[in-house]
């Protein structure tokens, strides 16, 4: 429900790490340089911003709205309409559980619920509090012969895995595997 999503987005302060404003500005400037201050290229611009931050940070969208001379709500209108855009920061790995018809009929909603349970996610929460895993519902991946399917992507987009023909207990195992992988990564970052 995109309108609920946009309402909470506009009301609540930005969650997650807030970066130096110059970081947002430089990305927004680069995007405007590439596409020009052209309202019709808004979707391409948002795609580029998301590629940089893995989600659409509020600060960046505010800058974009000033530069394009359109209101923030108009940008959020477009951003919440399309599936690709995320308004919240994501974990190290994003697990997308396919909710296509075939996967659903073969039990993907149970797998989804059990994965959330393993991570201890509360209602309306999609990312584990330790920042390791984000769990999302996804539209059909088009590999229905492997149903039920999940796709795991690292938030920087460098890794992508598909796991097929899952059941509840395998699903739980997969989540725990990625969580320990993600914890290693986070630890590595801290040590650097």
């Amino acid at each position, binding site marked *: *429900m*995109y*309108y609920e999503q946009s309402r909470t987005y506009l009301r609540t302060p930005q969650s997650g790490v807030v970066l130096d404003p110059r970081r947002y500005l430089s990305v927004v400037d680069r995007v405007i340089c590439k596409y020009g201050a*052209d*309202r*019709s*290229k*808004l*979707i*391409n611009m*948002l*795609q580029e911003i998301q590629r940089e931050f893995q989600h659409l940070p509020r600060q960046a969208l505010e800058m974009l709205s000033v530069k394009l001379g359109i209101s923030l709500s108009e940008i959020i*209108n*477009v951003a919440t*309409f*399309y*599936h*690709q*855009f995320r308004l919240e920061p994501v974990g190290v790995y994003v697990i997308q559980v396919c*909710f*296509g*018809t*075939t996967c*659903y*009929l073969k039990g993907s909603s*149970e797998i989804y*619920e*059990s994965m959330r*349970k393993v991570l201890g996610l509360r209602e309306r929460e999609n990312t584990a509090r330790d920042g390791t895993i984000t769990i999302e519902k996804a*539209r*059909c*991946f*088009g*590999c*229905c*012969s*492997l*149903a039920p*399917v999940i*796709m795991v992507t690292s938030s920087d987009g460098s890794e992508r895995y*598909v796991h*097929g023909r899952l059941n*509840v*207990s395998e699903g739980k195992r997969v989540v725990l595997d990625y969580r320990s992988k993600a914890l290693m990564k986070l630890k590595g970052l801290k040590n650097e």
Partner: protein
Amino acid sequence: MSEALELGSGTRKISELIVRVPLASCTLAAGASKVLESIEKALGKLGLEARIKKTGCMGLCYLDPWIELESRGLPPTIYANVKPEQAEGIIRRYVEGDLSGALAVRSEASGFKGVPTLNSLPEWRLQVRYVSRNCGFIDPESIEDYLRTGGYSGLKKALKLGREEVIEIVRKSGLRGRGGAGFPTWYKWRVAYEQRSDVKYVICNGDEGDPGAFMNRLLAESDPHRVLEGLIIAGYAIGASRGYIFVRAEKPLMADRLEVAVRQARDYGFLGEKILGTDFSFDVEVYRSAGAFVCGEETALIAAIEGRSRPRQRPPYPATSGLWGKPTVINNVETLAHVATIFQTGLDEFTKYGTERSKGTKMFCVTGSVRKTGVYEVPIGTKIRTLVYELAGGPPDGRSVKAVQVGGPSGGCIPADLLDLELDYETLQSYGAIMGSGGLVVIDNTNCMVDVAKYFITFTLAESCGKCLPCRVGVKVLGDILEKVASGTATLEDLELLRELGESIMRSSLCALGGTAPNPVLSTLRYFKNEYEEHVVMRRCPAKVCSRLVTYEIDPARCRGCGQCAKNCPVSAISGQPGKAFKIDTSRCTKCGQCLIICPFGAVVKG
């Protein structure tokens, strides 16, 4: 179609062994890239010189990942469900002339009687591979491969004709849009052609948002030039100067392959200024959409390219006022591939298939409860039963088909006793479904029809753009009533309300999304009224799916007494001693289903 022979003696050495590995999204998901790696390693280890050919997917998904080996003196042989560690053994045996473990050979060869030919398999024999003829055979990133199979000869023929003649050929073919509604393709072209405008556009709609339909992705990933050739012909016919191919960013490989195809076509002079020496100039851009189901709708798709969202009122139709207010023709991926093939192979080859009112073939994705999930191309008018049982192999052991869902979230359910219906636009519509993009999901006796309806309504509700009231609020109310049915709190009047409300949403919605959204509810209500009534009156879900209407029990034989269920039960309805079988107190149980999810041994069962 033996390519090694065509290449002649000059290239004998490299054509000694050809290994075809399918690299499409579906086969990659099944592990084709690991198989490719192991093949490369195996070839090095065996000291064999071979040409590895990266092809697209042939649509027999249950075989993924498959490979095909071809060599002189040996029949081209397909191996199914190849695991990386098997690659070496398969190749070694093949070059020694031992075809054991193979699925099929592509063509009959003497001396190899043990292995069936591809044509003896019903899932291949019953197909008419018309638009999908190259899928899984040629390298999608090679324009030479496409040219060798007669590619772009259709465009050359079309450019020699006048624009009106091109439209006339499409009219004679009787080609109808393969994206859903089955609107005659020529008619859109004619209207756009007659508009007086210096700028016109053609758009290839590759949005394909239906869950369970992926024939467009498969076609564009496996034979992208065919789609592009169709788009160029469409551009020529209406006098457009620019074309867009609209693809979801979630389908990166499809977009990449189409982009490669556009670049190659430009290099070969099939795109750009003065194409093939005529005064027709045309160029194409691949547009990566951010993904929304409603973008399959023409006006919403145009809005997306313009950087906005949401559909608008029609008329004016895009053919008179579309992208940037200019005449615009929007055709589906498969439709355009048909256009290219019609011009390549002639009208008769196309019109000999299909029914009186709908000519040609159509690709169908058969998924769900079947043994052989896949994309099958069959003549329009083929019986649903043939597709489900003969091609896709029917449901697995112990299950029976209850219904077939046709056309995705906008379509409907056809019950098992109507499986002898023929798949064409009018028949399906009169039985409450639509052809849609051609996704068939087989539903078996373990699935609940109320749950299926609820699934589709949840989908449409999330996808509703919120612009018009009937869709935004009406679909929400449909969902609420279905929830009541599924939890056993509905009354029989609610079922009547479902039908009435569904019908008014269809009449009053702005675009096709709302106009078809109630279809899954109405069709299940029409054919499975008993099941709805059982939920309402008996408060029972016969398929044991709706969690509020089943009871939960612990199977003492499987319970190991770990106590996880008791710990996680929100109402403390589970009790027991560690190490012994636990018990659920049904009077306190709220049927939330948490214990079923949490149990590591599968000891919680629904009764």
